[in-house]
């Protein structure tokens, strides 16, 4: 499942906007209150339309809430604007849905706001057919759908005991709370506890494989090979990581003892991986790598150190290569780690031509995030100085024909100007080397 394009009308702050999404990773940036989370909410409505076709998860689909209708204030009174429309275009189960699927609110009634689904029947039908095939014994690959909102820090204030989990149809469990902006940490915890217990008692190879996949997925997300393995501790009623200190000693740490940053990432990855394994256990050890789907993440940088912010996107891409991610952020480090077509700026339509990867961090802040107070370097003065030197050379040749000596001089002047300004580290190093060589010959 993939959404390529979404049109949002009269939804929260949006009058009417169209956004194109990258098939792998899209990051929305913008000032507070510019609508970053609203885009994710709209995508949740669109992605949730699929769940209407999954009978056991039907209630997990998300409708448009009454207070999400755009309101225009005129003469002091709020005027709700209808119709609200969320129109998504994309690909489900390998087939393009060219006409898209559309969810709307057409009328306002005092009691209940009804979100229509008649124009989203096409995607509902695809889901129904997939479910039918799956129940008749075929291996159907279901898409993971998840919305990780800012409330996702799992186990915070949760003192509840982790229950054993009864097994059930994958789709009925994998979509639980998938679109509520809180991830359901207890779900994967219960599953993990039950599963590990089962393996201990019955020792089934296929079960072992899935648990191993889950473990390695999570361990792989922790930088610098800090974590070696993990297991459920019945004594502590919590997941426990096997941790290696810099001295090479093994240490056990419960996940609830971890920092917010670690718990954020582990909670997020565990949630997605759990859903993948539940949906498509027939994929075995490839269940995490090959499960498609859409995952929405609000404030990807939550509690992360800049070093981790820099690599989180690559890590997610490598861990879940078939999933389409849409995220929001305020972090220049995350922006800098993006490729050219992965950034959407809600503050301005003008996107820099350059790959954000090649832009120095101070320029990410001034040019892309539009923060003015950062002292921008005085390009104008340096440019004007270089220009007068260059003009001198040019004006000395009335026939406009520069000699080779002129060119050597021009090359040096341009090199000096560009060295200060260039964004390409390799090119910069090259220019520096060239300058050194010039200085030596002089």
């Amino acid at each position: 499942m993939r959404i390529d394009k979404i049109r949002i009308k009269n939804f929260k702050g949006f009058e009417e906007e169209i956004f194109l999404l990258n098939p792998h990773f899209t990051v929305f940036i913008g000032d507070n209150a510019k609508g970053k989370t609203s885009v994710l909410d709209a995508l949740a409505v669109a992605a949730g339309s699929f769940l209407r076709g999954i009978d056991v998860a039907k209630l997990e689909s998300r409708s448009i809430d009454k207070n999400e209708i755009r309101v225009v204030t005129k003469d002091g009174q709020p005027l709700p604007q209808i119709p609200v429309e969320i129109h998504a275009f994309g690909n489900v189960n390998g087939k393009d849905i060219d006409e898209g699927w559309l969810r709307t609110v057409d009328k306002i009634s005092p009691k209940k706001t009804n979100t229509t689904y008649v124009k989203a029947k096409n995607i509902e039908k695809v889901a129904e057919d997939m479910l039918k095939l799956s129940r008749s014994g075929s291996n159907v690959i279901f898409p993971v759908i998840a919305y990780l909102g800012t409330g996702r820090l799992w186990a915070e204030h949760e003192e509840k005991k982790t229950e054993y989990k009864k097994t059930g149809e994958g789709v009925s469990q994998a979509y639980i709370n998938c679109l509520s902006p809180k991830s359901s940490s207890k779900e994967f915890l219960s599953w993990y506890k039950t599963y590990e217990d089962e393996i201990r008692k019955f020792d089934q190879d296929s079960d072992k494989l899935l648990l191993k996949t889950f473990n390695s997925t999570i361990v792989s997300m922790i930088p610098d090979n800090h974590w070696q393995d993990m297991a459920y501790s019945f004594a502590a009623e919590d997941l426990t990581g096997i941790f290696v200190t810099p001295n090479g000693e093994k240490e056990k740490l419960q996940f609830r003892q971890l920092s917010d940053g670690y718990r954020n990432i582990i909670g997020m990855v565990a949630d997605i991986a759990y859903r993948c394994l539940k949906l498509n256990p027939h994929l075995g050890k490839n269940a995490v790598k090959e499960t498609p789907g859409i995952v929405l993440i609000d404030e990807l940088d939550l509690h992360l150190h800049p070093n981790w912010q820099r690599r989180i996107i690559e890590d997610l891409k490598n861990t879940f290569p078939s999933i389409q991610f849409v995220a929001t952020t305020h972090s220049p480090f995350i922006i800098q780690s993006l490729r050219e077509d992965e950034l959407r700026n809600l503050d301005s339509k003008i996107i820099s031509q350059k790959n954000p990867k090649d832009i120095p961090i101070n320029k990410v802040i001034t040019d892309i995030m539009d923060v003015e107070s950062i002292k921008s370097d005085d390009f104008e003065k340096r440019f004007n100085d270089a220009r007068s030197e260059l003009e001198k050379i040019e004006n000395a040749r009335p026939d406009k024909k520069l000699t080779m000596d002129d060119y050597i001089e021009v090359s040096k002047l341009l090199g000096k100007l560009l060295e200060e300004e260039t964004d390409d580290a390799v090119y910069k190093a090259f220019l520096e080397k060239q300058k050194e060589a010039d200085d030596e010959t002089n």
Partner: protein
Amino acid sequence: MRPIDKGSWPTKGSHGVRKRVFNDWTRAIPFLKGRTGRFCHLCEMKVTNAIAIEHIKPKEHFRRLQAHWDNFLLICNQCNSHKLATIPISPYKKKYYWPHLNNTIKAFDFKITGEIIPNTTYLTTQPQIDRANATIGLYGLDKTVTAQGNSDDRLLERLEAYKQAIDRLIEYTGVPQLATVPAIVANAKNTGFFSVWLKVFDSVPVVKAALIDCPDFHLASTNSFNAAYQLTDRNPANAADPI
């Protein structure tokens, strides 16, 4: 400015008789890229994914032309953001120089200072110079610094192209000869700014010919060069301004 040939309106169907519909004009991008190369039609900057369709006559004011092939150019975000709300003065074909209609290499000079000015070697009358200046103004081609005091991306990229072209010239003419013709052409494709490379290598016929013949610059069908690789006029019937 590199002249281009967009060709006729793309067609579909087995006999190629029905015009393609461009209600979603971004669908014209692959056709323009395929026929004219991956460079901004106005500033010549190399563009990859972040590219837009320029509606010569703005689609907000000329709804009929929003899906019209003749109204399209390939444009980078910098040039596009300078145009935004500006409506070209009518008749736009006479008031400005256009890369798909004129031999725009004759119209503009790329100075080593990075500036773009009317090319007075070929523009001899005041109306011609006004016409070139109008084009520069319409897309802000002469911008050097942004409002925040940072460099205009196009200027910086142009200066980088200049630096690389000059370095290749120095290497090519030096003893021993360090740069080869194919390497120079590959470098030019990589930086964009064909006009800059053409100007720097104007006195080296072998390289000049290789640049003009390079298929990635799509110059063959623009009628902008003769067999001797000299600049020619694209509108010889127009006595007042044949460029």
